[in-house]
Protein backbone atom coordinates (compact mmCIF):
# COMPACT_ATOMS: atom_id res chain seq x y z
CA UNK A 1 0.00 0.00 0.00
CA UNK A 2 1.48 3.38 -0.93
CA UNK A 3 1.99 5.68 2.06
CA UNK A 4 -0.75 8.23 2.27
CA UNK A 5 0.14 11.84 3.01
CA UNK A 6 -2.17 13.53 5.48
CA UNK A 7 -2.08 17.22 4.71
CA UNK A 8 -4.56 20.03 4.83
CA UNK A 9 -5.93 21.43 1.56
CA UNK A 10 -4.09 24.69 2.12
CA UNK A 11 -0.84 22.90 2.98
CA UNK A 12 -1.03 20.94 -0.27
CA UNK A 13 -1.58 24.05 -2.35
CA UNK A 14 1.22 25.92 -0.57
CA UNK A 15 3.64 23.04 -1.04
CA UNK A 16 2.76 22.97 -4.72
CA UNK A 17 3.30 26.73 -5.07
CA UNK A 18 6.62 26.53 -3.25
CA UNK A 19 7.73 23.46 -5.18
CA UNK A 20 8.14 21.41 -2.02
CA UNK A 21 7.84 17.62 -1.93
CA UNK A 22 5.12 17.16 0.61
CA UNK A 23 6.25 13.61 1.36
CA UNK A 24 9.44 14.91 2.95
CA UNK A 25 7.71 17.23 5.38
CA UNK A 26 6.86 16.27 8.93
CA UNK A 27 3.35 17.14 10.00
CA UNK A 28 2.69 18.63 13.40
CA UNK A 29 -1.10 18.72 13.23
CA UNK A 30 -3.55 16.23 14.75
CA UNK A 31 -2.49 12.67 13.96
CA UNK A 32 0.61 14.01 12.20
CA UNK A 33 -1.31 15.98 9.59
CA UNK A 34 0.81 18.44 7.64
CA UNK A 35 -0.48 21.95 8.31
CA UNK A 36 0.29 25.17 6.44
CA UNK A 37 2.63 26.15 9.26
CA UNK A 38 4.74 23.05 8.56
CA UNK A 39 5.00 24.03 4.89
CA UNK A 40 5.89 27.59 5.80
CA UNK A 41 8.67 26.36 8.05
CA UNK A 42 9.92 23.93 5.43
CA UNK A 43 9.84 26.69 2.87
CA UNK A 44 11.93 28.95 5.06
CA UNK A 45 14.56 26.34 5.83
CA UNK A 46 14.69 25.51 2.12
CA UNK A 47 15.50 29.11 1.34
CA UNK A 48 18.38 28.88 3.78
CA UNK A 49 19.68 25.75 2.02
CA UNK A 50 19.82 26.81 -1.62
CA UNK A 51 21.33 23.43 -2.58
CA UNK A 52 18.10 21.60 -1.89
CA UNK A 53 16.25 20.41 -4.98
CA UNK A 54 12.60 21.24 -5.09
CA UNK A 55 10.36 18.40 -6.19
CA UNK A 56 6.90 19.06 -7.50
CA UNK A 57 4.00 17.16 -6.09
CA UNK A 58 0.53 17.41 -7.50
CA UNK A 59 -2.14 17.85 -4.91
CA UNK A 60 -4.47 14.97 -4.10
Amino acid at each position, binding site marked *: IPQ*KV*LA*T*PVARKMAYDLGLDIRTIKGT*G*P*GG*RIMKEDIRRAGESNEKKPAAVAVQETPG
Partner: protein
Amino acid sequence: MIYDVIILGAGPGGYVAAIKAAQMGGRVALIEKEDIGGVCLNWGCIPTKALLKSARLFEEVKKSDFFGIEGIDQSKIRVNWEQMNIRKDAVVKRLVNGVSNLLKRNGVEVFQGTGKVLDKATVSVAGQIIKGKNLIIATGSRAVMPPIEGIEEAVKTGIAITSKEALALKSLPEAIVILGGGVIAVEFATLFNALGSKVTLVQRSARILTNIERELAEGLQRHLVDKGVNIVTNSQIKRIQGKSAVLEVEGQEKICYGDKILVSLGRKPNTEGLEVLGLQMDKNGIQTNEKLETNIPGVYAVGDVNGKYQLAHLASAEGITAVENIFGQENKINYDIVPSCIYSFPEIATVGLTEQEARKQGYDVAVSKFPLSANGKALAEGESIGFVKIVAEKQYGEILGVHIMAVHATDMISEAIVSMQMEGTVYDVAQAIHPHPTLSEIMMEAAHGAIHKPIHH
Protein backbone atom coordinates in the same frame (compact mmCIF):
# COMPACT_ATOMS: atom_id res chain seq x y z
CA MET B 1 -29.28 28.54 -33.00
CA ILE B 2 -27.28 25.65 -31.66
CA TYR B 3 -27.30 25.31 -27.88
CA ASP B 4 -24.18 24.36 -26.00
CA VAL B 5 -26.28 22.04 -23.89
CA ILE B 6 -29.76 20.61 -24.20
CA ILE B 7 -31.08 19.27 -20.90
CA LEU B 8 -33.98 16.87 -20.72
CA GLY B 9 -35.90 17.12 -17.46
CA ALA B 10 -36.01 19.96 -14.92
CA GLY B 11 -35.66 18.09 -11.62
CA PRO B 12 -32.74 18.79 -9.28
CA GLY B 13 -30.42 17.07 -11.73
CA GLY B 14 -31.57 19.00 -14.80
CA TYR B 15 -32.38 22.45 -13.48
CA VAL B 16 -29.16 22.71 -11.47
CA ALA B 17 -27.17 21.60 -14.51
CA ALA B 18 -28.98 24.27 -16.54
CA ILE B 19 -28.14 27.06 -14.09
CA LYS B 20 -24.53 25.91 -13.79
CA ALA B 21 -24.13 25.71 -17.58
CA ALA B 22 -25.55 29.20 -17.95
CA GLN B 23 -23.26 30.49 -15.20
CA MET B 24 -20.35 29.05 -17.14
CA GLY B 25 -21.40 31.03 -20.15
CA GLY B 26 -23.25 28.37 -22.09
CA ARG B 27 -26.43 28.69 -24.13
CA VAL B 28 -28.83 26.27 -22.52
CA ALA B 29 -32.17 24.69 -23.46
CA LEU B 30 -34.08 22.98 -20.66
CA ILE B 31 -37.04 20.74 -21.53
CA GLU B 32 -39.68 19.79 -19.00
CA LYS B 33 -42.98 18.05 -19.60
CA GLU B 34 -44.53 18.66 -16.19
CA ASP B 35 -43.39 20.95 -13.40
CA ILE B 36 -40.09 22.74 -12.94
CA GLY B 37 -38.34 21.18 -9.97
CA GLY B 38 -39.18 17.61 -10.88
CA VAL B 39 -40.15 14.97 -8.35
CA CYS B 40 -37.98 16.53 -5.68
CA LEU B 41 -39.67 19.90 -5.41
CA ASN B 42 -43.18 18.86 -6.40
CA TRP B 43 -43.69 15.28 -5.21
CA GLY B 44 -40.67 14.30 -3.19
CA CYS B 45 -38.18 15.90 -0.86
CA ILE B 46 -39.92 19.19 -0.21
CA PRO B 47 -43.62 18.36 0.25
CA THR B 48 -42.78 15.39 2.49
CA LYS B 49 -40.56 17.57 4.71
CA ALA B 50 -43.22 20.27 4.93
CA LEU B 51 -45.79 17.72 6.13
CA LEU B 52 -43.29 16.07 8.46
CA LYS B 53 -42.69 19.44 10.09
CA SER B 54 -46.40 19.64 10.91
CA ALA B 55 -46.39 16.07 12.15
CA ARG B 56 -43.44 16.73 14.39
CA LEU B 57 -45.09 19.81 15.86
CA PHE B 58 -48.19 17.70 16.50
CA GLU B 59 -46.05 15.27 18.50
CA GLU B 60 -44.43 18.12 20.41
CA VAL B 61 -47.77 19.71 21.20
CA LYS B 62 -48.80 16.46 22.85
CA LYS B 63 -45.84 16.77 25.18
CA SER B 64 -46.49 20.41 26.03
CA ASP B 65 -47.55 19.72 29.63
CA PHE B 66 -44.22 18.10 30.33
CA PHE B 67 -42.41 21.14 28.93
CA GLY B 68 -44.45 23.48 31.12
CA ILE B 69 -47.10 24.70 28.72
CA GLU B 70 -50.60 24.55 30.13
CA GLY B 71 -54.11 24.96 28.88
CA ILE B 72 -54.07 22.65 25.87
CA ASP B 73 -56.98 20.27 26.01
CA GLN B 74 -55.33 17.16 24.59
CA SER B 75 -58.71 15.61 23.83
CA LYS B 76 -59.50 18.48 21.49
CA ILE B 77 -56.37 18.81 19.38
CA ARG B 78 -56.76 17.41 15.90
CA VAL B 79 -55.04 17.31 12.60
CA ASN B 80 -56.31 19.74 10.00
CA TRP B 81 -55.03 17.82 6.99
CA GLU B 82 -56.33 20.39 4.57
CA GLN B 83 -54.42 23.24 6.22
CA MET B 84 -51.27 21.13 6.43
CA ASN B 85 -51.52 20.61 2.71
CA ILE B 86 -52.30 24.24 1.98
CA ARG B 87 -49.09 25.19 3.74
CA LYS B 88 -47.17 22.40 2.03
CA ASP B 89 -48.46 23.50 -1.38
CA ALA B 90 -47.51 27.10 -0.65
CA VAL B 91 -43.96 26.05 0.19
CA VAL B 92 -43.72 24.02 -3.02
CA LYS B 93 -45.13 26.85 -5.08
CA ARG B 94 -42.71 29.34 -3.64
CA LEU B 95 -39.72 27.11 -4.35
CA VAL B 96 -40.87 26.22 -7.86
CA ASN B 97 -41.39 29.92 -8.62
CA GLY B 98 -37.97 30.61 -7.18
CA VAL B 99 -36.34 28.08 -9.47
CA SER B 100 -38.27 29.37 -12.50
CA ASN B 101 -37.01 32.87 -11.77
CA LEU B 102 -33.46 31.63 -11.35
CA LEU B 103 -33.65 29.92 -14.72
CA LYS B 104 -34.95 33.11 -16.30
CA ARG B 105 -32.36 35.32 -14.61
CA ASN B 106 -29.59 33.03 -15.78
CA GLY B 107 -30.88 33.11 -19.34
CA VAL B 108 -31.84 29.43 -19.57
CA GLU B 109 -34.44 28.80 -22.26
CA VAL B 110 -37.18 26.59 -20.91
CA PHE B 111 -39.29 24.49 -23.29
CA GLN B 112 -42.53 23.09 -21.95
CA GLY B 113 -43.38 19.66 -23.35
CA THR B 114 -42.19 16.11 -23.73
CA GLY B 115 -38.75 15.96 -25.29
CA LYS B 116 -38.11 13.29 -27.87
CA VAL B 117 -34.54 12.64 -28.87
CA LEU B 118 -34.12 12.41 -32.65
CA ASP B 119 -30.38 12.05 -32.56
CA LYS B 120 -27.72 13.02 -30.07
CA ALA B 121 -27.74 16.60 -31.31
CA THR B 122 -31.44 17.00 -31.96
CA VAL B 123 -34.50 16.98 -29.72
CA SER B 124 -38.08 17.66 -30.65
CA VAL B 125 -40.41 19.28 -28.18
CA ALA B 126 -43.93 20.59 -28.67
CA GLY B 127 -43.52 20.70 -32.42
CA GLN B 128 -40.17 22.47 -32.30
CA ILE B 129 -36.81 21.02 -33.23
CA ILE B 130 -33.85 22.10 -31.14
CA LYS B 131 -30.20 21.48 -31.76
CA GLY B 132 -27.36 21.19 -29.29
CA LYS B 133 -23.72 20.26 -28.97
CA ASN B 134 -24.21 18.28 -25.80
CA LEU B 135 -27.16 16.49 -24.29
CA ILE B 136 -27.81 15.90 -20.59
CA ILE B 137 -30.50 13.39 -19.78
CA ALA B 138 -32.07 14.13 -16.42
CA THR B 139 -35.47 12.52 -16.85
CA GLY B 140 -35.62 11.05 -13.35
CA SER B 141 -37.63 8.08 -12.17
CA ARG B 142 -41.16 7.04 -11.29
CA ALA B 143 -42.73 4.63 -8.84
CA VAL B 144 -42.94 1.01 -9.90
CA MET B 145 -46.27 -0.83 -9.71
CA PRO B 146 -45.22 -4.47 -9.52
CA PRO B 147 -47.51 -7.15 -10.97
CA ILE B 148 -49.31 -8.02 -7.74
CA GLU B 149 -52.66 -9.72 -8.07
CA GLY B 150 -55.46 -7.15 -7.79
CA ILE B 151 -53.17 -4.13 -7.94
CA GLU B 152 -54.53 -2.77 -11.22
CA GLU B 153 -58.07 -2.86 -9.88
CA ALA B 154 -56.90 -1.21 -6.65
CA VAL B 155 -55.18 1.55 -8.60
CA LYS B 156 -58.39 2.16 -10.53
CA THR B 157 -60.47 2.44 -7.37
CA GLY B 158 -57.88 4.77 -5.87
CA ILE B 159 -57.01 2.44 -3.04
CA ALA B 160 -53.52 1.55 -4.20
CA ILE B 161 -51.52 4.75 -4.52
CA THR B 162 -47.94 5.88 -4.93
CA SER B 163 -46.14 8.58 -2.96
CA LYS B 164 -47.38 11.10 -5.50
CA GLU B 165 -51.05 10.44 -4.70
CA ALA B 166 -50.23 10.19 -1.00
CA LEU B 167 -49.13 13.81 -1.19
CA ALA B 168 -52.47 14.81 -2.70
CA LEU B 169 -54.91 12.94 -0.47
CA LYS B 170 -58.14 14.78 0.22
CA SER B 171 -58.31 13.44 3.75
CA LEU B 172 -56.10 11.72 6.25
CA PRO B 173 -56.56 7.94 6.02
CA GLU B 174 -57.74 6.29 9.23
CA ALA B 175 -55.68 3.26 8.38
CA ILE B 176 -52.96 2.89 5.78
CA VAL B 177 -50.91 -0.05 4.60
CA ILE B 178 -47.45 0.79 3.30
CA LEU B 179 -45.87 -1.80 1.05
CA GLY B 180 -42.10 -1.50 1.27
CA GLY B 181 -39.55 -0.59 3.91
CA GLY B 182 -37.23 1.83 2.14
CA VAL B 183 -36.59 5.48 2.92
CA ILE B 184 -39.82 6.76 1.35
CA ALA B 185 -41.91 4.08 3.07
CA VAL B 186 -40.36 4.90 6.44
CA GLU B 187 -40.93 8.63 6.03
CA PHE B 188 -44.60 8.10 5.20
CA ALA B 189 -44.94 5.65 8.08
CA THR B 190 -43.49 8.33 10.37
CA LEU B 191 -45.83 10.95 8.97
CA PHE B 192 -49.11 9.05 9.09
CA ASN B 193 -48.33 7.44 12.43
CA ALA B 194 -47.57 10.80 14.02
CA LEU B 195 -50.81 12.21 12.62
CA GLY B 196 -52.83 9.38 14.15
CA SER B 197 -53.45 7.00 11.25
CA LYS B 198 -53.16 3.30 11.98
CA VAL B 199 -50.06 2.36 9.98
CA THR B 200 -49.04 -1.10 8.83
CA LEU B 201 -45.67 -1.34 7.12
CA VAL B 202 -45.07 -4.46 5.09
CA GLN B 203 -41.45 -5.45 4.56
CA ARG B 204 -40.14 -8.41 2.54
CA SER B 205 -36.89 -8.85 4.48
CA ALA B 206 -36.18 -9.20 8.17
CA ARG B 207 -35.82 -5.48 8.78
CA ILE B 208 -36.62 -2.10 7.30
CA LEU B 209 -34.01 0.07 5.54
CA THR B 210 -31.86 -2.77 4.30
CA ASN B 211 -29.42 -0.29 2.72
CA ILE B 212 -28.75 1.51 5.98
CA GLU B 213 -26.29 0.55 8.71
CA ARG B 214 -27.82 -2.31 10.67
CA GLU B 215 -27.82 -0.77 14.13
CA LEU B 216 -29.49 2.40 12.90
CA ALA B 217 -32.14 0.54 10.95
CA GLU B 218 -32.90 -1.82 13.79
CA GLY B 219 -32.95 1.04 16.26
CA LEU B 220 -35.42 3.02 14.20
CA GLN B 221 -37.54 -0.07 13.59
CA ARG B 222 -37.86 -0.68 17.33
CA HIS B 223 -38.67 2.96 17.83
CA LEU B 224 -41.40 2.98 15.16
CA VAL B 225 -42.93 -0.13 16.71
CA ASP B 226 -42.85 1.51 20.15
CA LYS B 227 -44.71 4.45 18.68
CA GLY B 228 -47.44 2.22 17.34
CA VAL B 229 -46.48 1.35 13.77
CA ASN B 230 -47.33 -2.24 12.95
CA ILE B 231 -44.28 -3.55 11.09
CA VAL B 232 -44.70 -6.89 9.36
CA THR B 233 -41.32 -8.29 8.31
CA ASN B 234 -40.36 -11.40 6.33
CA SER B 235 -43.58 -11.16 4.41
CA GLN B 236 -44.61 -11.82 0.86
CA ILE B 237 -47.39 -9.84 -0.75
CA LYS B 238 -49.89 -12.27 -2.24
CA ARG B 239 -52.60 -9.98 -3.51
CA ILE B 240 -54.58 -6.82 -2.98
CA GLN B 241 -58.22 -7.40 -2.31
CA GLY B 242 -60.56 -4.49 -1.75
CA LYS B 243 -58.95 -2.40 0.94
CA SER B 244 -56.66 -5.16 2.14
CA ALA B 245 -53.23 -6.44 1.37
CA VAL B 246 -53.05 -10.18 1.73
CA LEU B 247 -49.64 -11.41 2.83
CA GLU B 248 -47.89 -14.64 3.51
CA VAL B 249 -45.84 -14.50 6.66
CA GLU B 250 -44.00 -17.63 7.78
CA GLY B 251 -46.41 -19.84 5.91
CA GLN B 252 -49.47 -18.11 7.33
CA GLU B 253 -51.86 -15.83 5.52
CA LYS B 254 -52.15 -12.41 7.05
CA ILE B 255 -54.57 -9.65 6.06
CA CYS B 256 -53.69 -6.00 6.53
CA TYR B 257 -56.44 -3.43 6.15
CA GLY B 258 -56.05 0.16 4.99
CA ASP B 259 -58.23 2.89 3.51
CA LYS B 260 -55.24 3.39 1.30
CA ILE B 261 -52.44 1.07 0.28
CA LEU B 262 -49.25 2.98 -0.43
CA VAL B 263 -47.10 1.09 -2.89
CA SER B 264 -43.49 1.99 -2.23
CA LEU B 265 -41.67 -0.90 -3.81
CA GLY B 266 -39.06 0.92 -5.81
CA ARG B 267 -38.72 3.38 -8.65
CA LYS B 268 -37.63 2.94 -12.23
CA PRO B 269 -35.78 5.26 -14.62
CA ASN B 270 -37.70 7.30 -17.19
CA THR B 271 -36.02 6.27 -20.43
CA GLU B 272 -38.87 6.57 -22.93
CA GLY B 273 -38.11 8.67 -25.98
CA LEU B 274 -34.38 7.99 -25.81
CA GLU B 275 -34.42 4.72 -27.75
CA VAL B 276 -32.81 6.11 -30.89
CA LEU B 277 -29.59 6.90 -29.00
CA GLY B 278 -28.70 3.29 -28.33
CA LEU B 279 -27.62 3.99 -24.77
CA GLN B 280 -26.06 1.29 -22.66
CA MET B 281 -28.45 0.50 -19.82
CA ASP B 282 -28.79 -1.97 -17.03
CA LYS B 283 -31.85 -2.67 -14.91
CA ASN B 284 -31.16 0.40 -12.73
CA GLY B 285 -30.78 2.92 -15.52
CA ILE B 286 -28.47 4.49 -18.05
CA GLN B 287 -24.84 3.57 -17.50
CA THR B 288 -22.39 6.41 -17.03
CA ASN B 289 -18.73 6.82 -16.11
CA GLU B 290 -17.49 9.04 -13.28
CA LYS B 291 -17.75 12.04 -15.55
CA LEU B 292 -21.44 11.20 -16.00
CA GLU B 293 -20.92 10.55 -19.72
CA THR B 294 -22.83 7.67 -21.32
CA ASN B 295 -21.46 5.33 -23.96
CA ILE B 296 -22.38 8.01 -26.52
CA PRO B 297 -19.83 10.85 -26.45
CA GLY B 298 -21.45 14.17 -25.66
CA VAL B 299 -24.46 12.52 -24.05
CA TYR B 300 -24.59 12.62 -20.27
CA ALA B 301 -27.05 11.13 -17.80
CA VAL B 302 -27.50 12.54 -14.30
CA GLY B 303 -29.79 11.89 -11.37
CA ASP B 304 -32.23 9.07 -10.83
CA VAL B 305 -32.14 8.07 -14.50
CA ASN B 306 -28.59 6.74 -14.20
CA GLY B 307 -29.75 4.48 -11.41
CA LYS B 308 -26.82 4.95 -9.05
CA TYR B 309 -28.77 6.26 -6.08
CA GLN B 310 -32.08 8.07 -5.84
CA LEU B 311 -30.98 11.22 -4.09
CA ALA B 312 -31.71 14.80 -5.04
CA HIS B 313 -28.38 16.17 -3.84
CA LEU B 314 -26.52 13.58 -5.85
CA ALA B 315 -28.60 14.45 -8.90
CA SER B 316 -27.61 18.11 -8.48
CA ALA B 317 -23.95 17.30 -7.89
CA GLU B 318 -23.96 15.08 -10.96
CA GLY B 319 -25.62 17.83 -12.95
CA ILE B 320 -22.88 20.27 -11.97
CA THR B 321 -20.15 17.72 -12.64
CA ALA B 322 -21.53 16.84 -16.09
CA VAL B 323 -21.60 20.52 -16.98
CA GLU B 324 -18.06 21.08 -15.71
CA ASN B 325 -16.87 18.22 -17.86
CA ILE B 326 -18.74 19.58 -20.87
CA PHE B 327 -17.03 22.92 -20.41
CA GLY B 328 -13.61 21.34 -20.04
CA GLN B 329 -13.24 21.69 -16.25
CA GLU B 330 -12.59 18.04 -15.50
CA ASN B 331 -14.32 16.83 -12.39
CA LYS B 332 -15.85 13.66 -11.04
CA ILE B 333 -18.15 12.52 -8.27
CA ASN B 334 -16.66 10.71 -5.30
CA TYR B 335 -19.42 8.15 -4.78
CA ASP B 336 -17.87 7.12 -1.45
CA ILE B 337 -19.02 10.34 0.21
CA VAL B 338 -22.68 10.60 -0.71
CA PRO B 339 -24.89 11.15 2.34
CA SER B 340 -28.30 9.59 2.84
CA CYS B 341 -30.94 11.05 5.11
CA ILE B 342 -34.20 9.82 6.55
CA TYR B 343 -36.49 12.39 8.10
CA SER B 344 -38.03 10.05 10.62
CA PHE B 345 -38.46 10.91 14.33
CA PRO B 346 -35.61 10.69 15.30
CA GLU B 347 -33.81 11.31 12.05
CA ILE B 348 -31.19 9.10 10.47
CA ALA B 349 -28.25 10.30 8.43
CA THR B 350 -25.36 8.33 7.14
CA VAL B 351 -22.34 8.66 4.89
CA GLY B 352 -19.59 6.30 3.81
CA LEU B 353 -18.83 2.76 4.82
CA THR B 354 -20.53 0.70 7.49
CA GLU B 355 -18.40 -1.34 9.87
CA GLN B 356 -19.10 -4.50 7.87
CA GLU B 357 -18.28 -2.87 4.54
CA ALA B 358 -15.04 -1.44 5.89
CA ARG B 359 -13.95 -4.84 7.17
CA LYS B 360 -14.87 -6.46 3.88
CA GLN B 361 -12.70 -3.94 2.08
CA GLY B 362 -9.78 -5.09 4.23
CA TYR B 363 -9.41 -2.13 6.54
CA ASP B 364 -8.15 -2.48 10.07
CA VAL B 365 -11.24 -0.90 11.56
CA ALA B 366 -11.82 1.22 14.65
CA VAL B 367 -15.47 1.72 15.58
CA SER B 368 -16.69 4.20 18.13
CA LYS B 369 -20.21 4.85 19.30
CA PHE B 370 -21.54 7.59 21.55
CA PRO B 371 -25.17 7.89 22.70
CA LEU B 372 -27.36 10.99 22.79
CA SER B 373 -28.34 10.07 26.33
CA ALA B 374 -24.90 11.21 27.54
CA ASN B 375 -25.15 14.59 25.79
CA GLY B 376 -26.26 17.71 27.63
CA LYS B 377 -28.06 19.36 24.74
CA ALA B 378 -29.99 16.20 23.93
CA LEU B 379 -31.24 16.05 27.51
CA ALA B 380 -31.99 19.77 27.64
CA GLU B 381 -34.12 19.34 24.51
CA GLY B 382 -35.76 16.19 25.82
CA GLU B 383 -34.51 14.28 22.77
CA SER B 384 -32.09 11.65 23.95
CA ILE B 385 -32.80 8.75 21.60
CA GLY B 386 -30.03 7.73 19.23
CA PHE B 387 -26.28 7.66 18.78
CA VAL B 388 -23.39 8.53 16.52
CA LYS B 389 -21.20 5.76 15.17
CA ILE B 390 -17.87 6.53 13.55
CA VAL B 391 -16.09 3.95 11.43
CA ALA B 392 -12.40 4.75 10.94
CA GLU B 393 -9.32 2.87 9.81
CA LYS B 394 -6.54 2.44 12.33
CA GLN B 395 -3.41 3.32 10.36
CA TYR B 396 -4.13 7.02 9.95
CA GLY B 397 -7.40 7.32 11.79
CA GLU B 398 -9.12 8.30 8.56
CA ILE B 399 -12.89 8.46 8.85
CA LEU B 400 -14.53 5.94 6.52
CA GLY B 401 -18.14 6.30 7.55
CA VAL B 402 -20.42 8.08 9.99
CA HIS B 403 -23.85 6.84 10.96
CA ILE B 404 -26.18 8.98 13.01
CA MET B 405 -29.57 8.54 14.63
CA ALA B 406 -30.59 11.75 16.37
CA VAL B 407 -33.26 14.40 16.39
CA HIS B 408 -31.13 16.59 14.08
CA ALA B 409 -29.09 13.87 12.38
CA THR B 410 -29.67 15.41 8.96
CA ASP B 411 -28.02 18.63 10.14
CA MET B 412 -25.23 16.82 11.95
CA ILE B 413 -24.07 14.74 9.00
CA SER B 414 -22.59 17.73 7.17
CA GLU B 415 -19.67 17.80 9.58
CA ALA B 416 -18.92 14.19 8.68
CA ILE B 417 -19.18 14.93 4.97
CA VAL B 418 -16.71 17.79 4.91
CA SER B 419 -14.38 15.83 7.17
CA MET B 420 -14.41 12.93 4.74
CA GLN B 421 -14.14 15.28 1.76
CA MET B 422 -10.86 16.52 3.23
CA GLU B 423 -9.67 13.01 4.18
CA GLY B 424 -10.11 13.97 7.79
CA THR B 425 -9.17 11.73 10.67
CA VAL B 426 -10.63 11.13 14.09
CA TYR B 427 -7.66 13.17 15.38
CA ASP B 428 -8.83 16.23 13.48
CA VAL B 429 -12.42 15.90 14.67
CA ALA B 430 -11.37 15.28 18.27
CA GLN B 431 -9.06 18.30 18.23
CA ALA B 432 -11.70 20.66 16.79
CA ILE B 433 -13.40 22.53 19.63
CA HIS B 434 -17.11 21.82 19.29
CA PRO B 435 -19.49 24.26 20.95
CA HIS B 436 -21.23 23.39 24.18
CA PRO B 437 -24.02 22.51 24.50
CA THR B 438 -24.68 21.01 21.07
CA LEU B 439 -25.37 17.62 19.60
CA SER B 440 -22.17 18.04 17.61
CA GLU B 441 -20.20 17.34 20.77
CA ILE B 442 -21.26 13.74 20.21
CA MET B 443 -19.16 13.64 17.03
CA MET B 444 -16.19 14.91 19.00
CA GLU B 445 -16.77 12.38 21.77
CA ALA B 446 -17.08 9.54 19.28
CA ALA B 447 -13.82 10.68 17.68
CA HIS B 448 -12.12 10.68 21.09
CA GLY B 449 -13.53 7.20 21.53
CA ALA B 450 -12.02 5.99 18.27
CA ILE B 451 -8.60 7.22 19.41
CA HIS B 452 -8.75 6.18 23.03
CA LYS B 453 -11.75 7.00 25.18
CA PRO B 454 -14.56 9.54 25.08
CA ILE B 455 -14.68 11.96 28.02
CA HIS B 456 -18.34 11.68 28.91
CA HIS B 457 -18.88 7.95 28.81
